[in-house]
């Protein structure tokens, strides 16, 4: 039985697609057959972050409408054997997704895949609702910043009332907090909410903390999920995040200001 994980946030630009790409890739690297679905109809971007934008032929909406089958629309990743991407449509509007259609495709995918990652669009409209409706688990991507935290809380409300699990009286969606763009130096200076602050306000279990990092932009520039850049802080933080998502107990890193050694202090860096 496949596990469906939605990556959501409410607010835009906090790192949903970056995180979907990294987490999906990370799970697939562990040997699980994984598909990442782009639910952002009309504003497709997962293909670009994954570096497969020129291989898109058919998309999610084509499959729902029966204009193509799943085999034709799924893009097989060239780096990881067990990883696939289902791109969003670029031309249709957000209402092109029907609940019945999405359910049919998810059921079909569930027969073949171990993990289905749903990359949600921003906002709380139908696209975002569709992405979270069928989820078993949710990764709530949050920046340590007031509007993002507030929107995350709003999404938590949706997860507990507007999902299939809520409507059918099943056990609720398992919620995880993923704090991104974290800058320990600014936290120490009292300029940024700390991990503890955000955890206290949202009151859900912390899955991971991704430090603000040059590596993220470099990764998206070149169409490589940042988790593949394993020398980088962000790449390592995503590896830890995936391990925790798979149930492993991994200590948190990158929460404190890195102490500069004598050489670094002299030569910079």
């Amino acid at each position: 039985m496949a596990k469906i994980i939605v990556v959501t946030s409410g607010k835009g630009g906090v790192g949903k697609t970056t995180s979907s790409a990294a987490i999906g890739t990370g799970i697939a690297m562990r040997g699980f057959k994984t598909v990442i679905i782009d639910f952002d109809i009309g504003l497709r971007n997962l293909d670009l972050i994954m570096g497969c934008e020129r291989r898109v032929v058919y998309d999610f909406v084509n499959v729902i409408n029966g204009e193509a089958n799943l085999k034709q629309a799924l893009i097989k990743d060239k780096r990881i054997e067990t990883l696939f991407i289902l791109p969003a449509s670029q031309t249709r509007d957000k209402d092109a997704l029907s609940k019945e259609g999405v359910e049919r495709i998810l059921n079909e995918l569930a027969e073949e895949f171990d993990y289905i990652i749903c990359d949600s669009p921003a906002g709380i409209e139908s696209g975002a609702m569709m992405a979270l409706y069928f989820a078993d688990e949710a990764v709530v991507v949050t920046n340590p910043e007031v509007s993002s935290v507030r929107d995350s809380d709003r999404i938590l409300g949706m997860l507990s009332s507007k999902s299939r699990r809520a409507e059918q009286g099943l056990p609720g969606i398992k919620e995880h907090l993923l704090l991104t763009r974290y800058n320990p130096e600014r936290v120490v200076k009292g300029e940024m909410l700390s991990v503890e602050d955000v955890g206290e306000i949202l009151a859900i279990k912390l899955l991971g903390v991704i430090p603000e990092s040059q590596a993220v932009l470099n990764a998206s520039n070149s169409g490589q999920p940042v988790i593949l850049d394993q020398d980088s802080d962000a790449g390592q933080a995503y590896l830890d995040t995936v391990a925790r998502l798979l149930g492993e107990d991994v200590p948190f890193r990158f929460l404190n200001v890195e102490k500069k050694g004598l050489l670094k202090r002299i030569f910079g860096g």
Partner: protein
Amino acid sequence: MSLLDYFRSTKKNTASTAKERLQIIVAHERNRRNSPDYLPQLERDILAVIRKYVDIADDQVSVSLEKSSDELSVLELNVTFPDDKK
């Protein structure tokens, strides 16, 4: 920044301000989320009635419905009157 300011170093910690503001608004919105749809309208109606007699601002009335058990819900009405009574 003057030299004196530098030594005084009473920079306001904006992160703690953010935390306080968030705690308040999030608690408020969670309360709303769990309450019936008619509550905002009820609040507006109550506000209109009180305004017939006393001049109060929008944020001086708060209405909340708390479910204390399966059989019992308590409607709490909080009205802050202005200091200078007319």
